[in-house]
C-alpha cells in the first residue's frame, strides 16, 4: 500500500496505540494535520506548544503510557524545548513530533527553520531528522520503543514537509534498526542475593525509593520487600505515592525540604538501598556527607547511574520489578532456611520517636492569615488521598508533597529534576485526559500559574474539569525565602502582588469557575464547591500568608546534618534534632 509520509505518520501513531495527541499546527506540519482529522486519534489543540509538551508529560506520569505532542517547525518546535528538558530530567516517556522545513531548504535559514534535532540533542533520549518517506513508520516505532523501554525519556522525530508530502510504501510493523540500543536484561541473581544478605543483617537499613519504582510499577513489590525486611522507606519527590505515607514504615520524603525522620534516618543508616533513585543533590545535600555510615546497594535500570555520584557496595542493574521481587524472595527463603530474620526493632523505635518529636509543623491560627499547608492538608483529608495531585515548582510544590498524604502511585505529578515553573496547569490537563473521571488537582503558585494559564482555555473547551488551587502569596515565594535566609532579606524583584491579575475574573474569562478564599474557616466549603465542578475547570485563588516558608530545610550545598526544622520548633528542639538521639524512645 502507498501512503504519504503524513498518512504514514498518523497510521503509525494509531498502530502504536496512541489515543490522544496534544498539539498546535503550523506551516511545516500542516500535511500531517490533514490525515489527523480523519484518524482515530483525539487531538487536543493547546494554546502554546509548551502546554502540549507538559500535557504529554502529565499524561505519561498519570498513565504510564507514552505521551505525544506535535508542533510545527521553528518556534513551534523550540516552544517544546522546556517540556523536553523536563521530561529528560524526570525520565518521562514522551514522543515529540515536529514539522521541519522542506529538505531542500534545510540549512538555508528558511522561514520558521530551526535545527531542532541539534537544539534538543542534550535533552532528549534520542532524536532523528527523518530523511525519507519510507523511513517514517520505523522512525515512529523506534521512537516509541526508545521512549518507553529501559530508562524512559523523551524522543523527538523531526519530519521535513517534503517527507510528509512524498508517497512511499507502507507496511506495519516496520523493521526497527537499533543495533546500538540495549535494554538491560534480567538482573544478576548473585547481586540480588548479596543485597538481600546486607538487608538481612543490617540493623539500621533505609530503602531510598526513587521515581524508578513508580515507572516500573513495582510499588506492590516494594511494599512486600519493606515488610519482609522490616526496613523503613523514604520516597523522593519523584516517588511520592510509591509507598503509602500512612504506612508505619513510611518516613516521608528525604532531601532539602524532606521530613526530619527521613533525612536523619539516611544520615544514621548502616545500609541504604537506593531503588530507582539517582543520588540527586537535592536529596544528598553535600554529597561527601551523605549517609556517611551506610553501605550502599544501588539498583537501577540505567548502568550509567551506578557510581555516578556515590560508589555502591552492591550494584544491581535492571528492571526494578524483578529486582524488588527477587530481594523479597531471597529474604523469605533465608528466613525459611532458618537464618536470623532482619532485626530492626530498635531502629524502628528510634525512627518512631523522631516521627513523634519532629513532625512537619506549621501554625494555622483560626483568625490568622491562611497557611498554604492548611489548604493542602484539608484537600488531603477531604479527598482521603483519592486524587491526582499536580504541582508546579516552588513553595507550593513542597507544601503539597509534604502535607498531602499519598496512598497510591501515579497520584503525584510534578517537575522534579528540571524544576519547571508553569508545569502544573498543562500537566494537570494531560493527566485529566489520561484519567478521565478522576479528580485531578493542580496545586500551583501564583508565579507558576501565570506562565501557562492559557491552557485553561483548552481545558474549558475540552471539558477537562481540572481543579487549580493557586497558593497566591504575591511572591515568587521560594526565591523570596532564599533572599530572606541567604541574602539578608534584600527582596530583589520577587514581588508579584496578589491583586493583578484578578484570578477569579481570569478564570471566568477562560470559561472556568473562579473562586477566592482567604480565611481558614472557609477552606473546606470552597474546596468542596471546587471539587463538585465536573464540566469545566475550577480555579481557586487562595490568598495565603506571604511570609510562610518551607521547612524543614537543608541549606543548598550543605550537609544534611545542617537540617533546620523551622520557626515552629524551639531552640531546644532544634538542638535535640541535631544530636539525633539514638536511644529508642522510652528506653
Amino acid at each position, binding site marked *: 500500500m502507498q501512503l504519504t509520509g503524513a498518512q504514514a505518520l498518523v497510521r503509525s501513531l494509531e498502530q502504536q496505540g496512541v489515543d490522544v495527541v496534544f498539539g498546535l499546527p503550523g506551516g511545516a506540519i500542516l500535511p500531517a494535520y490533514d490525515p489527523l482529522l480523519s484518524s482515530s486519534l483525539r487531538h487536543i489543540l493547546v494554546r502554546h506548544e509548551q502546554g502540549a509538551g507538559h500535557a504529554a508529560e502529565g499524561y505519561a506520569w498519570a498513565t504510564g503510557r507514552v505521551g505525544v505532542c506535535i508542533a510545527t517547525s521553528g518556534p513551534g518546535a523550540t516552544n517544546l524545548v522546556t517540556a523536553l528538558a523536563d521530561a529528560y530530567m524526570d525520565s518521562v516517556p514522551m514522543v515529540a513530533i515536529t514539522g521541519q522545513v522542506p529538505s531542500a531548504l534545510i540549512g538555508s535559514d528558511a522561514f520558521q527553520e530551526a535545527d531542532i*534535532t*541539534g537544539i534538543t*540533542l*542534550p535533552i532528549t*533520549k*534520542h532524536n*532523528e*531528522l527523518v*530523511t525519507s518517506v519510507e523511513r517514517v513508520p520505523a522512525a515512529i516505532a523506534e521512537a516509541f520503543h*526508545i521512549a518507553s523501554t529501559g530508562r524512559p525519556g523523551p524522543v523527538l522525530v523531526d519530519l521535513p514537509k517534503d517527507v510528509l508530502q512524498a508517497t512511499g510504501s507502507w507496511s506495519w510493523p516496520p523493521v526497527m534498526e*537499533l*543495533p*546500538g*540500543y540495549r535494554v*538491560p*536484561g534480567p538482573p*544478576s541473581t548473585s*547481586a540480588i542475593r548479596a543485597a538481600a544478605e546486607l538487608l538481612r543483617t543490617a540493623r539500621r537499613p533505609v530503602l531510598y525509593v526513587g521515581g524508578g519504582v513508580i515507572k516500573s510499577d513495582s510499588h506492590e513489590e516494594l511494599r512486600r520487600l519493606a515488610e519482609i525486611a522490616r526496613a523503613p522507606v523514604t520516597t523522593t519527590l519523584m516517588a511520592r505515592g510509591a509507598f503509602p505515607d500512612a504506612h508505619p514504615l513510611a518516613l516521608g520524603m528525604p532531601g532539602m525540604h524532606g521530613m526530619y525522620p527521613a533525612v536523619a534516618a539516611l544520615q544514621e543508616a548502616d545500609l541504604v538501598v537506593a531503588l530507582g533513585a539517582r543520588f540527586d543533590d537535592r536529596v544528598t545535600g553535600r554529597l561527601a556527607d551523605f549517609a556517611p555510615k551506610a553501605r550502599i546497594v*544501588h539498583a537501577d535500570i*540505567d*548502568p*550509567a547511574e*551506578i*557510581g*555516578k555520584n556515590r*560508589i*555502591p*557496595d*552492591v*550494584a*544491581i*542493574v*535492571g528492571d526494578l520489578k524483578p529486582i524488588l521481587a527477587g530481594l523479597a524472595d531471597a529474604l523469605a527463603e533465608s528466613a525459611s532456611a532458618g537464618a536470623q530474620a532482619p532485626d530492626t526493632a530498635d531502629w524502628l523505635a528510634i525512627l518512631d520517636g523522631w516521627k513523634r518529636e519532629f513532625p512537619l509543623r506549621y501554625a494555622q491560627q483560626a483568625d490568622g492569615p491562611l497557611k498554604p499547608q492548611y489548604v493542602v492538608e484539608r484537600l488531603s483529608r477531604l479527598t482521603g488521598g483519592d486524587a491526582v495531585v499536580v504541582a508546579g515548582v516552588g513553595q507550593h510544590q513542597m507544601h503539597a508533597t509534604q502535607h498531602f498524604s499519598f496512598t497510591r502511585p501515579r497520584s503525584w505529578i510534578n517537575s522534579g529534576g528540571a524544576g519547571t515553573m508553569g508545569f502544573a496547569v498543562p500537566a494537570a490537563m494531560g493527566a485529566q485526559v489520561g484519567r478521565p473521571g478522576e479528580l485531578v488537582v493542580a496545586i500551583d503558585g501564583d508565579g507558576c500559574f501565570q506562565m501557562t494559564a492559557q491552557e485553561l482555555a483548552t481545558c474549558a473547551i475540552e471539558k477537562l474539569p481540572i481543579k487549580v488551587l493557586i497558593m497566591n502569596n504575591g511572591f515568587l515565594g521560594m526565591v523570596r525565602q532564599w533572599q530572606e535566609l541567604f541574602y539578608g532579606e534584600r527582596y530583589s524583584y520577587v514581588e508579584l502582588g496578589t491583586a493583578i491579575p484578578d484570578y477569579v475574573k481570569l478564570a471566568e474569562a477562560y470559561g472556568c469557575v473562579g473562586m477566592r478564599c482567604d480565611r481558614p474557616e472557609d477552606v473546606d466549603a470552597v474546596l468542596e464547591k471546587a471539587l463538585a465542578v465536573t464540566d469545566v475547570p475550577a480555579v481557586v485563588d487562595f490568598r495565603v500568608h506571604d511570609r510562610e516558608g518551607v521547612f524543614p530545610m537543608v541549606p543548598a550545598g550543605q550537609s544534611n546534618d545542617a537540617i533546620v526544622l523551622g520557626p515552629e520548633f524551639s531552640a531546644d528542639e532544634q538542638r535535640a534534632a541535631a544530636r539525633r538521639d539514638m536511644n529508642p524512645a522510652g528506653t
Partner: protein
Amino acid sequence: MTTHTLSVLVENKPGVLSHVAGLFSRRAFNISSLAVGPTADERVSRMTIVVDGASTPVDQVAHQLDKLVRVLKVVQLDSAVAVERELALIKVRAEPERRGQLLEVASVFGANVVDMSPDTLVLEAVSSPAKLDSLLAILHDYGTCELVRTGRVALARGSAVITDVPDEAAAERAESAA
C-alpha cells in the same frame, strides 16, 4: 597528563558525531582528541576518543556514550596492550644552513619530508603520541610555523578484535565495579 583511550563503534549515520560531541559538552567531559573514520563495514564508523583522565571519570564516559542510541560498542583500550598512533604534519623553519640537521632529526623519528620551500620544510610524522611529543619538542627549537595533528588512533595488540572484547559499559561491568 593521564589519558584514557576509548574505541567506539558507531552507526555510520548523519548526526552521530554531533551526538557524541554533544554528550561530551553536556556532561562536562574533557576530550583530548577525537578521530573518526570508516571501518571495513560501511555501516559502521570507528571513533578513537582520548579523554583527560584527571578531570573526567572514564567509566562514566563509557556508560554515557553507550547510552547513545547510535553507539554500538565502547571499549577502553589499555595503552600497555594497544598500538597507538598519531599523524602530524609540521611546517618548520628550515634555512639552508640548518636543513641538514633537521633532516637528521626527521630521520631519527622516521618522519618524511613531504614539502619544501626555500626556508621551510613540511614533515610528516607518524608515531606513538609520546614519541611525537618529543619530536615536536625538538622541532620547537628550530621554529615550528604550523602544526596539524590527527588525534590518536589505536588498536589492541594481539589477535582479539573489538567485537570480541566485552562491552565496557555493559551492566555486568557496572555491577562488578561496585
